[in-house]
């Protein structure tokens, strides 16, 4: 191990192993996770060493190979899809497998299909007799589902639906696994019966032959081409021309078209919202938090290995993490990784409780859950995406090499800002909920627990008297709460004013959307700080860990105030003099957390293989790894045809032409 990294580990103020176990939810979980990771990483089929050198075609093929091999592996290890190990498998393969949409296909049939449909399709899918996809997004429409243009017209005479792509913007576009792999897909289309439109419904459509994989009649499908990342996934397009599917292929748990064309609704569709909520929350941990934790690990380890310039004359060059500006870049991102890890735990808990209630047909908590999941999905993906980018840029030139691992982490996480609901639209959904609750609360009506604070508008000023006061969670949590209330109430007032002055409701809404989005963000920021502070408080028994977590919580909160000082200064809740105290406290904390920075990323417990980074390895041999790995690049192994074809003539013959 590089001595620069070893020295960082000797001075840890807490037990890394204990922190890891706590993050995992117990030492038993840690043990299981490590066993799964070891089994996967020990198997050369899952190696990602060449990933950065591969073309789109090669990456796709590798992903299919791994997906197939994973089935075998799971069988061998006795892991099942419902077993406790399953969640660690995805982490261990770093998401680099095909058929992820196959699982969404199965989930959507289970959620939207009747018992009969489930009995027919699920066994086939489980056995991989067919490969499924999920075709919702179109070229012309994404988050706004009502705008989808694909049609499914019911034909009574043949008892079939006729599916069509009426124009180019109606083409299905982006669904994963659909470009090359899938044989079947769930197509979302506008249902027409007797010329009347009944809105968007799901239909199971076969798109490729089960024999030779060729496209079915009436189907045009293919890959949508290179993207910023996800090159291992064959995101596809799909065009349908008079494709007929039997009446039984419409997923009909909630609505059915009877043989005579009668449209029947059954049961509550609210459960669909619950599914959407579940998906939004579940992506946070795998697709957002893990990349950020990896990026922090790489950037922080590299920052103690790289030495640059001198802090004191005559001494060795300093580790770049000893520069305040480097700490200011990286440590808030580390704090954010922890903060959102706890937010995620909180959301999981809400979700579990919500699930229990939904099972009992109690849908009361759904609107709150839906609003919270939208807002948190938006704020967390946005925050973590820019955090990863900061880590990338904090590694200077070497961060730009794919071998640092950072570019691929970044291009992957940033997709999360778009899929499962575009972030701005999600924030506005949360804002709608906040405004509604604010009005209700002002009128003295009951509101859900997460927003009761909106009713308790307390005018006043921040009571902090010196910089140490800002290390009291009550002080900063109150400040965040104050801002969230102020932004929500002032926007509500503005909306009210506009409407009273004669502006139409929807116009008024559009004119306030910038403010509304800010209010939603402020709410989520407040909830994150509050939850972090409460989590730390509950930690009493675990000495060492609690102390460092408290520092991180303080840092997260003060960094937020420092970098959004305007909203806290506005209306004078925090005074100019107090803002200087915030800044001073915040900068002091950087130096404190600096000492534990490496142990704090070690606690995330990523193996070198899972980081797949020349800069972030546990042993800190960054330069040696970079040099050795670069030599394996295909550009160094194969003789470049460019020399013979172009360079040589250029070097020797061009003169005669000039």
């Amino acid at each position, binding site marked *: 191990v590089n001595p620069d990294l070893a020295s960082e580990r000797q001075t840890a103020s807490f037990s890394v192993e204990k922190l890891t176990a706590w993050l995992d939810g117990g030492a038993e979980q840690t043990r299981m996770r490590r066993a799964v990771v070891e089994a996967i990483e020990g198997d050369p089929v899952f190696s990602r060493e060449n990933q950065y*050198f591969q*073309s789109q*075609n090669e990456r796709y093929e590798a992903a299919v190979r791994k997906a*197939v091999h994973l*089935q075998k592996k799971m069988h061998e290890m006795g892991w099942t899809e419902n077993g406790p190990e399953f969640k660690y498998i995805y982490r261990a393969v770093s998401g680099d497998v095909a058929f992820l949409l196959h699982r969404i296909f199965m989930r959507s049939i289970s959620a939207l299909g009747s018992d009969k449909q489930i009995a027919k399709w699920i066994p086939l899918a489980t056995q*991989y007799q067919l490969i499924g996809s999920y075709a919702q997004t179109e070229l*012309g429409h*994404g*988050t706004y589902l009502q*705008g989808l243009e694909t049609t499914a017209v019911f034909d009574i005479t043949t008892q079939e639906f006729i599916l069509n792509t009426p124009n180019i913007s109606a*083409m299905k576009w982006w669904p994963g696994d659909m*470009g090359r792999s899938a044989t079947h897909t769930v197509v979302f289309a506008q249902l027409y019966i007797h010329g009347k439109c009944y809105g968007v419904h799901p239909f199971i459509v076969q798109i490729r032959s089960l024999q*030779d994989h060729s496209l079915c009649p009436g189907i045009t499908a*293919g890959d949508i*081409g*290179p993207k*910023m990342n996800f090159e291992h996934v*064959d995101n596809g397009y799909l065009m349908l021309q008079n494709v007929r599917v039997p009446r039984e292929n419409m997923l009909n748990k909630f609505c059915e078209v009877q043989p005579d064309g009668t449209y029947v609704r059954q049961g509550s569709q609210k459960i669909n919202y619950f599914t959407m909520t579940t998906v939004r929350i579940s992506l946070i941990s795998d697709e957002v938090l893990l990349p950020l934790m990896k990026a922090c690990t790489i950037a922080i380890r590299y920052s103690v290995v*790289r030495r*640059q310039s001198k*802090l*004191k004359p005559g001494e060795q060059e300093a580790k770049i993490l000893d520069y305040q*500006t*480097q700490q200011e870049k990286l440590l808030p991102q580390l704090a954010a990784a922890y903060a959102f890890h706890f937010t995620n735990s909180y959301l999981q808990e809400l979700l579990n409780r919500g699930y229990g209630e939904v099972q009992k047909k109690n849908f009361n908590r759904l609107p709150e859950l839906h609003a919270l999941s939208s807002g948190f999905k938006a704020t967390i993906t946005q925050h973590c995406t820019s955090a990863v980018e900061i880590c990338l840029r904090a590694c*200077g*030139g070497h961060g730009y090499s*794919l*071998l640092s691992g950072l*570019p691929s982490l970044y291009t992957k996480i*940033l997709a999360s*800002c*778009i899929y499962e609901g575009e*972030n*701005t639209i999600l924030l506005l959904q949360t804002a709608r909920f906040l405004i509604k609750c604010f009005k209700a609360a002002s009128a003295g009506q009951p509101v859900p627990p997460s927003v009761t604070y909106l009713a308790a508008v307390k005018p006043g000023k921040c009571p902090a008297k010196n910089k140490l006061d800002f290390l009291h969670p009550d002080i900063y949590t109150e400040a965040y709460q104050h801002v969230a209330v102020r932004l929500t109430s002032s926007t509500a007032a503005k909306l009210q004013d506009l409407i009273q002055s004669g502006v*139409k409701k*929807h116009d008024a809404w*559009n*004119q306030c*959307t910038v403010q509304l*989005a800010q209010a939603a963000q402020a709410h989520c920021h407040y909830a994150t700080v509050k939850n972090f502070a409460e989590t730390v408080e509950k930690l009493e028994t675990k000495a060492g860990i609690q102390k460092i977590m408290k520092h991180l919580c303080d840092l997260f909160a003060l960094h937020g105030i420092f970098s959004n*000082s*305007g*909203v*806290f*200064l*506005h209306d004078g809740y925090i005074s*100019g003099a107090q*803002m200087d105290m915030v800044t001073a406290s915040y900068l002091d904390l950087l130096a404190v957390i600096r000492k534990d920075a490496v142990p704090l990323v070690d606690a995330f417990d990523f193996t070198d293989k899972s980081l797949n980074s020349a800069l972030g390895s546990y042993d800190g041999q960054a*330069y*040696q790894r970079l040099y050795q790995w670069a030599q*394996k*690049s295909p550009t160094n192994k194969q003789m470049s045809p*460019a*020399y013979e074809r*172009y*360079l040589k003539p*250029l*070097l*020797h013959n061009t*003169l005669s032409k000039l």
Partner: protein
Amino acid sequence: EALVINDPDFQHEDLNFLSRSQRYEQAIRKSSLMVVKLREYGIADPDEIYWFKSFVHRGRPEPLDLHLGMFLPTLLTQATPEQQDRFFMPAWNLEIIGTYAQTEMGHGTHLRGLETTATYDPATQEFILNSPTVTSIKWWPGGLGKTSNHAIVLAQLYTQGQCKGLHAFIVPIRQLGTHEPLPGITVGDIGPKFGYDEMDNGYLKMDNFRIPRENMLMKYAQVEPDGTYVKPVSDKLTYGTMVFIRSLIVGDSARSLSRACTIAIRYSAVRHQSELKPGEPEPQILDYQTQQYKLFPLLATAYAFHFVGAYIKDTYRRISGDISKGDLSELPELHALTAGLKAFTSWTANSGIEECRMACGGHGYSRCSGIPDIYVTFTPSCTYEGENTVMMLQTARFLIKSYTQVSSGQRVTGMVSYLNDLSRQRIQPQHVAARVVTVRINDPVSLVEAYKARAARLVEAAAKNLQTELNHRKSKEDAWNRTSVDLVRASEAHCHYVIVKLFTAKLSEISNAAVRAVMTELCLLYALYGISKNTGDFLQAGILTDAQINQVNQRVKELLAIIRPNAVALVDSFDFHDIHLGSVLGRYDGNVYENMFEWAKKSPLNKTEVHESFHKHLKPMQAKL
């Protein structure tokens, strides 16, 4: 442009579908052609060459960049006449292809830390070049991996047992004829990167590699045959080159952001989504306030940066005349200012490009949008030619120096002259209260004053904090480090002020009334949006009141609506040709969806109807389960 577009030799498949090796090969092919054609057409003016080159390569890097941009110019400025005779014509005729090998694996911006050594051996009159450690391996130079046969290597010069600091040496690295590396030279490509696929950024390791004494670039510093070292006259001269290159990056920030804005704004006019009014057709997404709020401030920023880039270039031209006459007085300020502006504009453009991409939703993520490419090509400029944080601290050093001068009673001139006011009128709450009313939010000139006050306050705060640290008897370096977050903020505020000032100054030069009107709107938007994003600074300094901040926020939204009708025209004015833009979403004709489909059909995964993975993996699995 027409020369290139109509030339079939420059056509090729969409680069997005090519592997790295293929992209390198295409770039080399085009570069070779380009050199031949430039001379055929007799194009020699640097600006014309720049346009020709950027059109051939569509704004992308190419393997001969370092040869043309660094190797040849360095020969011109630092080689003796004898060396020019030996190297310049062969290099001009591309018998010699060179690169500029400065950055090492372990050191970038901090040049003094470079470890490569060049030890003079008087017995043979040679320099012995060595890469003594892994970290000393030259790493990153463009064109080094596969293309070049020579390199200008920066190394620590040792002669007569003493280290004389960094000097430049011409080092042959590959055999002329076979292109094989020379004995003692290890050279190769550094592997895949985020972008720059067509560039063979390389590594270079030297083991006791000997070059003749005459290969040290000796126009300034010299080593005589017996090993005696002769010092150069002034080292400030190299500032000039740095200023020039950093001014190019400011221009590049403007251009890259303009391209991204063009794509995002055109696409937002083409895409319809959801409903604004019940029952009406889906509106263009550019009609949503949130979308305007994402894009229009960036559009204004792109214009602002254009003017800043032009200003630095002009100033540089103006004072480079003085420099050649030996007058270096204006250089330090320009050098300090350019460092900060390079950092400020490249950071802003970097995140601005990403915001444009995000504003295009899912399709922005596809390579067909062209924005991923703009981003990955642009983002390294936050690092190269001086890491941005280090650049900001250089500007800060100048600001603090000026502040100290003012405090000791001297007057300072130029962009920092506002510091002169500080000593006379300490910013006091009472005094500030008097200022408040003077800010008129619809008057750019008044907003310049507001930015000026903010910069003054932050420079003063940083200077005082630095003094406090020093009073705690910290070492100078330690105190500086503990204040560096404040110092960077001060630099940013200074740069922001300069940009608002330059934009505002530009308005009066516009003769066409309609153009001036729309530019004034953009200038106001730029200035007001900057305030609304940094309200804390303006509130805390007492420059603006709560009520004024509310007005600023409101005015920003009004300006969005005012600019909306001109938005597409404003990006059309950038005049990017479709081929240069390289974006399906940003096409001039707006036929986005049908062309996305056409583009996707050419994807490598679609080369065969049934992908080979089906036969190799899927079918066997289905048989087994």
